[in-house]
């Protein structure tokens, strides 16, 4: 399934060599010297007390860490959002005037999934316990000694290891799907747990082989080693809802892939796709029920529209774009691609009258359904930061390049070669963009326009092919679609929408690619209220699952035209609560 293999990819690019915990093997822009970990560990320190901040900074510097100070939680969050892979660990004070440290902790866990260490002069058990339940990976009592800081790298490694394990799990499960499909073609009652065991080794072996290939960030290798080159099925909202309806109709216990497939009656998906999806769905449900039981304060955090969603709605566009992307694609590259495309589209929109642009997008229901959330955010982002932009012409052309009658399948066709591009295609982008201090993804579309013979000049070096990485739902049957002229999207970062570093840095620092992989866009603020922020072995898997199921519901909640309207009207809004016009509380009612 997409998610698993994509997650696998992420992990690979994150930590290419397991032997050295170095983070820069595949990174282009990482400043630290190879194999000097933990030296160069990028720490973000958040504390409203300037004295403490100074002391911590000095201590961390003495530990040879790269330190960024921050005295306000909001600033810290935006720093983290802007540099999704710019930090390895966060140290935060519990007691801060603008935001409770625990709230920040949860946010970071949700959005960036970074290890967070809490600090406080308060050493009472209740507060320490709160730290634990909110997911802090450590709790330091002030005054903090340098010895305590020296070992914080362990939390980074531990977290990565856990993510690897989860990737292993999900990848293995995924492989299990495929193998099982062959072996148990007639088995009506496909059960993931039953098959997990004996196929684990096979799957793992294959994954390990893939790991080797991943070490160099060679996406193509992974693609080749993938046993089944089936067209990807991206479970978009409609599809998933059909799936859920079928499952509910059959009864979750009786729901077997064949029957579900028949009930869904959707061309282009195979029983295997359904089986794989069902397996994930089951795991997801299991986690959901499990986490609800364990949820304490956290569930209310999410179920409370004001407190939870209010803050969560401040998720950056980047997050949501990435989330939506990951929800569909989960793959690192796609995470990057999607926002870029969105931004490009948004920019185009912003520059031209709505009527001339929105139409083509609206025609492509499936695309828009995915793009909207991201576009919205991207638009705000773009608007906020770029204002007038002379390069808007490019994006405009981009839209023109979009066939107005494009069917979803066509777009999906672009995804065909995506896996191959993930690591290769996207990596250069991020590493290059770093030097430009802004990484806007618009060029994804602009690249596309270039293909049809546009006059766009291309700068050297930063181009790479991003094929099929638009995060468009892939209904399969896209083999023939690969020949569409959508297929070749050349991305040229230098032609990014200028306007300074306004656009969100998606992965500005590829050097920290380890975070790319590790940075599963964790977006679980969709009303699940799960207490999964407790450090939990299954967390990343759960979150991945959440992403895949929950986020896809976004588009369904809102009329697409409304979304576009919202986008335009929000052009001038600063990023803030609910700027996206998303009724977060309604996410509570998302069908699952």
């Amino acid at each position, binding site marked *: 399934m997409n998610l698993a293999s994509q997650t696998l990819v992420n992990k690979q690019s994150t930590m290419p060599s397991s032997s050295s915990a170095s983070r820069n093997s595949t990174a282009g822009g990482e400043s630290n010297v190879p194999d000097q970990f933990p030296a160069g560990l990028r720490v973000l320190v958040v504390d409203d007390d*300037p004295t403490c901040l100074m002391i911590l900074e000095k201590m961390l510097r003495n530990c040879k860490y790269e330190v960024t100070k921050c005295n306000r939680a909001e600033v810290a969050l935006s720093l983290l959002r802007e540099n999704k892979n710019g930090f390895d660990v966060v140290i935060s004070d519990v007691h801060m005037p603008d935001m409770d440290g625990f709230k920040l902790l949860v946010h970071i866990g949700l959005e960036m999934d970074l290890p967070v260490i809490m600090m406080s002069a308060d050493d009472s058990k209740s507060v320490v316990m709160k730290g634990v339940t909110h997911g802090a990976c450590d709790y330091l009592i002030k005054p903090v000694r340098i010895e305590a800081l020296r070992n914080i790298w362990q939390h980074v490694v531990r977290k990565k290891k856990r993510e690897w394990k989860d990737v292993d799990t999900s990848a293995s499960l995924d492989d299990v799907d495929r193998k099982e499909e062959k072996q148990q073609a007639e088995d009506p009652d496909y059960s993931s747990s039953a098959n997990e065991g004996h196929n684990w080794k096979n799957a793992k072996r294959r994954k390990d082989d893939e790991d080797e290939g991943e070490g160099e960030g060679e996406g193509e290798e992974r693609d080749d080693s993938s046993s089944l080159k089936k067209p990807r099925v991206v479970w978009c909202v409609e599809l998933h809802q059909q799936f859920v309806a079928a499952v509910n109709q059959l009864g979750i216990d009786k729901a077997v892939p064949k029957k579900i497939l028949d009930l869904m009656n959707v061309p282009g998906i195979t029983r295997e796709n359904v089986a794989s999806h069902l397996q994930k769905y089951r795991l997801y449900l299991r986690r959901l029920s499990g986490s609800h039981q364990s949820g304490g304060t956290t569930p209310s955090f999410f179920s409370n529209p004001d407190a939870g969603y209010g803050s969560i709605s401040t998720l950056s566009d980047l997050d949501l774009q990435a989330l939506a992307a990951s929800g569909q694609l989960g793959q690192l590259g796609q995470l990057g691609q999607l926002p870029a495309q969105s931004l490009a589209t948004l920019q185009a929109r912003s520059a031209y009258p709505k009527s001339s642009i929105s139409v083509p997008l609206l025609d492509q229901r499936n695309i828009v359904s995915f793009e909207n959330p991201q576009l919205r955010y991207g638009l705000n982002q773009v608007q906020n930061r770029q204002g007038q932009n002379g390069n808007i012409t490019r994006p405009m052309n981009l839209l023109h390049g979009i066939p107005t009658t494009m069917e979803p399948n066509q777009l999906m066709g672009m995804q065909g070669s995506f896996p191959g591009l993930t690591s290769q295609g996207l990596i250069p982008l991020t590493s290059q963009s770093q030097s430009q201090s802004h990484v806007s993804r618009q060029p994804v579309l602009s690249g596309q326009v270039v293909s049809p013979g546009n006059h766009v000049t291309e700068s050297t070096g930063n181009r790479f092919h991003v094929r099929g990485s638009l995060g468009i739902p892939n209904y399969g049957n896209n083999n023939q679609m690969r020949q569409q002229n959508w297929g070749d999207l050349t991305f040229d970062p230098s032609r990014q929408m200028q306007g300074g570093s306004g656009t969100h840095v998606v992965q500005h620092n590829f050097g920290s690619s380890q975070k790319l992989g590790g940075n599963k866009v964790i977006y679980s603020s969709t009303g699940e209220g799960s207490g999964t922020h407790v450090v939990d072995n299954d967390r990343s898997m759960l979150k991945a699952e959440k992403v895949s199921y929950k986020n896809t519901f976004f588009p369904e909640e809102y009329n697409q035209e409304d979304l576009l309207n919202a986008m335009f009207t929000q052009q001038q809004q600063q990023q803030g609560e609910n700027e996206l016009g998303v009724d977060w509380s309604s996410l509570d009612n998302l069908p699952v």
Partner: protein
Amino acid sequence: MEQSHIKKQINFIKNSLFEQGYLDEQFIQLEDLQDDANPNFVEEIVTSFYSDSTRLIRNVENALENYPLDFCKLDDYMHQFKGSSSSIGAKKVKVECTHFQECCKARNSQGCIRAFQQMKQEHATLKRKLEAYFQISRNE
């Protein structure tokens, strides 16, 4: 000669500060952080502490003028104060902060006021002593 004499003085002052409980181990941590790149690190930290804590003290004074006392807020202030004073190793100041916090928990207004006076005193005393200490250190 002169130098070693000054060094002796510096050490004497420092030792007495420790022995009298004005400073604790954390101060040594700060001194360990001082290096060629930051030759006046400790002094900078202490300066930062005093400017920040002066502001806090003012806040507490204002809060103490509003009756009935907002013990939550006062406890809050003291928590902050405790955090920063412990970071520089201001032992006695920290102790007084704890007293204050205990009075807050007990909702003891008079106790709070007394504790605050004590705390201010320790705060000022330490400042004097550290200033002298740094003065001499600079002359070295």
